[in-house]
């Protein structure tokens, strides 16, 4: 496990990422829904190749943070720097092109399409031919489609899913659907991958496998991963930096050991010990 080192700014990144600009720097990020501050003054720094975790009790605002980072919602305050670039005013589409890809807590696949097509849709902006060459089947179409096919299969291989390529995405078992979402997100060639409860509904052996795969993805693609998860074994096992969110505010940040021993965190999850 890499040692966490504080940056001159407010964030921390793993030791190996020092000297490289962090991939994500969110400062004072917040959103209000009609007076209710769902997320408030949220700060987070994610290193270039860090696996970071975002945890907190139900309703703490974790998924809202993801929605702010990916511009499903526009933040009402604060800034997000992605790879040093301000994402202010970007749409969900632009932010994806800039390098953030995500999965969803409630799985959102293209159910009526095949597994391979789902991955190819992820590669959409990296397949270079226009609609006219597609309709007229110009040579460019065949070259790019063949390349896309090979690439899609090699991405599916990460989770050993090549044999499912022809199946409808909606017909896959739950765990496979979650894995397919990750593959689809990876197909967009992100610099930062956001995983929203990747282990939800998985059994312990599947979760263990997922942990290996998340590490493998980070090492193969050299990207940063930020994940939301309730399975503490997974979080403590693979995350280098962890941020804890409660009632829309960060209540603690640090390495897994620091978080495990943090009194505020324990109170947030288990409640306060009675005095006396």
């Amino acid at each position, binding site marked *: 496990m890499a040692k966490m080192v504080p940056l001159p700014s407010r964030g921390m990144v793993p030791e190996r990422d020092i000297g490289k600009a962090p991939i994500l720097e969110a400062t004072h990020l917040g959103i209000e829904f009609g007076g209710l501050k769902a997320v408030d003054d949220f700060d987070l720094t994610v290193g270039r190749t860090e696996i970071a975790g975002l945890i907190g009790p139900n309703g703490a605002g974790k998924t809202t943070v993801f929605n702010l980072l*990916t511009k*499903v919602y526009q933040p009402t305050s604060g800034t997000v720097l992605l790879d040093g670039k301000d994402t202010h005013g970007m*749409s*969900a*589409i632009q932010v*994806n*092109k800039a390098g953030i*890809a*995500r999965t*969803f807590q409630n799985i*959102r*696949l*293209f*159910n*009526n*399409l*095949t597994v*391979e*097509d789902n991955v*190819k*849709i*992820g590669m*959409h*902006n990296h*397949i270079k*031919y226009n*609609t006219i060459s*597609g*309709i*007229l*089947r110009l040579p460019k*179409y065949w070259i*790019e*489609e063949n390349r896309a*096919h090979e690439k899609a299969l090699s991405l599916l291989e990460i989770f050993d899913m*090549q*044999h499912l*390529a*022809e199946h409808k995405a909606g017909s896959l078992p739950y765990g496979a659907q979650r894995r397919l979402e990750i593959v*689809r*997100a990876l*197909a*967009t060639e992100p610099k930062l991958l956001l995983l929203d409860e990747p282990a939800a509904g998985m059994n312990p052996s599947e979760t263990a496998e997922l942990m290996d795969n998340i590490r493998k993805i980070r090492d193969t693609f050299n990207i940063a991963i930020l994940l939301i998860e309730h399975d503490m074994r997974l979080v403590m096992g693979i995350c280098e930096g962890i941020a804890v969110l409660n009632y829309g505010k960060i209540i603690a940040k640090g390495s897994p050991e620091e978080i495990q021993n943090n009194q505020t965190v324990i109170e947030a999850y288990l409640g306060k010990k009675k005095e006396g």
Partner: protein
Amino acid sequence: MKQAKMNRTTRSNLITYLMVIAFFVIFQILIATGNVSSLLKGQLVPICAYVVMAISLNLVVGVSGELSLGHAGFMSAGAFSGIVAAGYLQTMMESETLVLLIAMIIGGIVAAAAGVIVGVPILRLSGDYLAIVTLAFGQIIKSIVENLYVGYDANGLQFSMVKNTLELGEGGKMLITGPMGANGMATISTFTMGFVLIMVCLFVIFNLVNSKSGRAIMALRDNKIAAQSVGISSSKYKLLAFVVSAAMAGMAGVLFALNFTTVVASKFDFNTSILILVFVVLGGLGNMRGSIIAAALLTVLPELLRSFADYRMLVYAIFLILMMLATNNPKLKGFLQSISAKIKGAVGKGGEANG
């Protein structure tokens, strides 16, 4: 693996192409040998036009997943611009086929332009709201054409939406006279051109659907938020499907209109839009072959039912209900499937025994 899949989609598309070609060849032979009644013969071009309407609407409703109730509006926009183009071109050109071709292209372009104008603002809507606005669009087109006066003389084409008569010079001719529609047109549409149009539209739709753009359109249908999260522009691809569909409807409109000597705007009203939607729903959403069969059958049916005289529409309605039951009832579907499985099993066993 990939090979198998390529073959499956390609084979399915190939069957559809072959079906249309077979339909064309059979009717050509029947016509040549004089075995087609004049009634049915008169239906051939309208069938082609409705088939194109059905597959183009299926692109919007089935592939793109947006309900459009104004498809006849695009047909109308194409039809009347095609009438003007054809009427004007006939003074200059001999070849009827060339006139029809140019008229169809112009009709397609006008309808596509209408598609862009309507599509840009309304494709921000979805579901029922989109349906209501497209419905209104169909009515607007109808009203515009009913107030449109177009004629030509030595000075060229003349338009008016205010005066109900145009002061045309000597040798001038009215092409569209408001609510009276277009009269005295030369009927230059042919079954062959209808067939060619169907084939071209099928080619465009199949190739579009099996390309990057088609996948983007279907991704937006299945899950818009997820599609945007992987960088697919919702407005761009929804508009693409809408405009391609509108252009095809425009061309079908030209084919349809130039098959008659008289066409009025009310021919392309809400009822026509619904009729085309019925073709699509009965044929199956996203299923082009189904749309073609449904459009062809349901266009011919009212003519075939003439012997029922007063009860014609009653029988038509019963037929529609039965067809809907047959295509959508799970019990009936299961029953039909079990029968076909038994037949296949029997054939398979027979084959084994013989082998």
